């Protein structure tokens, strides 16, 4: 179905090819996983298959490429899209329409599919994807997972024979990933050829027929599904790949917590944790920020309703729970960014203004909080650039965060991880005491995840509170000290993870 012969690509303005000498055959009906570190060329490989390179991102193609007997270089992206369907990382920015039915019909309309055929396909797709409940809904009302499902379904409406998915799970939580798995199973059953590039491997490990491993723009290894699943953890981590299986969190935390006889909460599961902590309440003099009450309402609905939560200081606290459970709202309420009914005690009750001054929230869309013209300008925002002492301090912080070489670059040009670290640097220089992260690990590979975890461990001593709101269990297991589970707006008592 897909034949690459010494295929490669060099982006315009770049000396180094992003991808070189890739020769591979993919048979019809195969599900192939493409993996490797960030920047290994897996995205580029996918862009060659769906024509995004060179159709949208200009550059030089090498070797020969055939997808379903088409040379992607010889047709427009639009023509190719009748045969090759694509799904990308950000669910929302792929939606063209404001209601879901229009979105599903978008591709068919573009390809001038007849009305009757369109209707028939719509019935089939809706049934295959189980999306009846989303029909007639505004696309703005969809969660990330739902949006991604609609995007997949919309692609399916074109009935392509090849699907190309570029990190489709990057912004999804566990529940949404389960849905994505269902979608992939349905597509596979329909006989489609599927190529997926991913960092998060656990949901694909059991599904894939073959794995291509890329490193520095080259195809360095190929595995069958069974070979790949048999790789041991050490081998996998030296390849820079994330886990192929992730155990449930709560069970694990439960065991560990009880084992250490830990002093903060007794590690009961989510539900009872709260009640239990009320009795075996930790020593009030212990170093903790107490959230006596935090109630946040949005559109006349109570989103977060937390009481008596002890947040241990100098510890990396993971705030977990599925998307939409109120993690972001909790951070917004705690930090004072959002008006909330809050009683927070940290050596005295804190007003909203005080909390606002002490907190720094690194947002999920971190680019929305970067205003500076360079990394240095960003971290000194609002301060005098001539202040020698401050400048020296800024340089120290940037060096310790591995940003020294990027100090004069515009923040827009940074990678996602660098943007995050820039925000952290700004927070540290602003004497932040509560450092809060909202979903910081979307779409990052193993190296970046470990590095980010290490960073948190390093800075937790210099700020009072480090809270990471995340749905990424793998990340929680590897980097957090304590876990607070949020469900239906209520929080469990923190339990210790290691």
């Amino acid at each position: 179905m897909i034949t690459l012969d010494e295929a490669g690509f060099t982006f315009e303005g770049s000396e180094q090819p992003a991808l070189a000498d890739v020769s591979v055959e993919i048979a019809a009906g195969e599900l192939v996983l493409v993996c490797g570190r960030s920047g290994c060329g897996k995205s580029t490989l996918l862009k060659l298959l769906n024509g995004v390179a060179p159709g949208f991102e200009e550059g030089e193609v090498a070797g020969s490429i055939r997808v379903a007997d088409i040379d992607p270089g010889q047709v427009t992206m639009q023509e190719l899209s009748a045969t090759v369907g694509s799904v990308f990382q950000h669910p929302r920015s792929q939606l063209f329409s404001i209601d879901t039915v229009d979105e599903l019909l978008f591709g068919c309309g573009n390809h001038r599919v007849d009305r009757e055929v369109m209707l028939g396909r719509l019935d089939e797709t809706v049934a295959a994807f189980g999306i009846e409940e989303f029909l007639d809904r505004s696309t703005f009302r969809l969660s990330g997972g739902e949006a991604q499902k609609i995007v997949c379904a919309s692609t399916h409406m074109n009935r392509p024979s090849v699907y190309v998915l570029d990190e489709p799970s990057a912004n999804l939580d566990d529940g949404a990933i389960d849905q994505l798995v269902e979608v992939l199973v349905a597509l596979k059953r329909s006989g489609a050829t599927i190529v997926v590039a991913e960092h998060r491997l656990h949901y694909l490990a059991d599904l894939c027929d073959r794995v291509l491993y890329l490193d520095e723009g080259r195809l360095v290894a190929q595995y069958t599904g069974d070979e790949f699943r048999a790789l041991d953890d050490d081998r996998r981590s030296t390849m820079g790949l994330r886990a192929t299986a992730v155990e449930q969190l709560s069970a694990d935390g439960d065991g560990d917590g009880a084992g250490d006889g830990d002093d903060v909460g007794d590690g009961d599961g989510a539900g009872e944790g709260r009640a239990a902590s009320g009795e075996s309440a930790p020593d009030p003099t212990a170093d903790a920020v107490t959230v006596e009450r935090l109630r946040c309402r949005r559109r006349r609905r109570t989103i977060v309703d937390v009481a008596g939560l002890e947040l241990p200081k100098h510890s990396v606290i993971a705030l977990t729970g599925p998307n939409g459970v109120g993690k972001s709202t909790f951070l917004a309420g705690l930090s004072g960014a959002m008006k909330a009914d809050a009683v927070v005690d940290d050596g005295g009750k804190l007003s909203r203004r005080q909390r606002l001054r002490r907190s720094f929230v690194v947002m999920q869309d971190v680019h929305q909080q970067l205003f500076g013209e360079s990394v240095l300008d960003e971290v000194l925002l609002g301060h005098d650039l001539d202040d020698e002492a401050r400048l020296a301090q800024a340089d120290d912080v940037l060096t310790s965060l591995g940003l020294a070489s990027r100090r004069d670059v515009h923040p827009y040009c940074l990678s996602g991880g660098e943007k995050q670290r820039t925000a952290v640097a700004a927070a540290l220089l602003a004497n932040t005491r509560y450092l809060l992260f909202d979903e910081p690990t979307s779409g990052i590979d193993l190296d970046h995840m470990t590095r980010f975890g290490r960073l948190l461990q390093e800075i937790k001593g210099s700020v009072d509170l480090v809270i990471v709101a995340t749905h990424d269990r793998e990340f929680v297991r590897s980097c957090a000290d304590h876990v607070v589970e949020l469900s239906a707006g209520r929080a469990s008592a923190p339990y210790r993870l290691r």
Partner: protein
Amino acid sequence: MTSAIEAPAGRFRLDPRTKLLLLVLMNVVVYSYGNALFIYLGVAFGALLLVVAGSLRAVAMLTATYAVLFAIDAVIGAAPGAVVELWNGLSLSFFVALPTAVYALLLVTTTTMSELAAALQKLRVPTAAMIPLLVFVRFVPAVAQDFRAITTAMRLRGATGGGNPLRAMEYVYVPLLLGLVRTGDQLTVAALTRGLGRFRTRTYLVEPRFGVVDVLAVAVMVALLVAASRA
């Protein structure tokens, strides 16, 4: 699920082209003849069409606005002169804008984007000319969302420009525009890989077609127009 697909064929559904025509005709009634009686008749007819189309929320909104306007108008006579002046200034815009707004509401609240696009295509508008309009509608709420997120972020970081409005403007624009450039590109790629712009025209599930209701609605409006011009 059937509603989205079959509702447009419902008996009392006006063709989007009719709604456009009604909007234009109502404008002529308001701006050319400016006769209060006929303007209110036009408003009533528009409200009726909204009710028939099932857009009850729009009707409720409209009725509430008029009720408030008239109520204030009735009691304000007793207020001091300056207050009356101010009120006159404020309410004039509403009285002028509302009658046509009824028909704009009819178009906007009872037409899906694809119906409108299909109707425009029948009027020989090429897809290329419709893309910016569709993207505009799709992005207005997104821009508003981004704007709120950015102003929150500014507050959190204390980046309010220190009283310098130009600085504050920069802090809003830089992340906003850079973000839009990024999402615009992502949307472009997603649209191209689903075939947008492959042909000059697209196909639509719903074919707009004129029916008896369209003829009736236009007839009523034309009658109103003729009567207004004679009055």
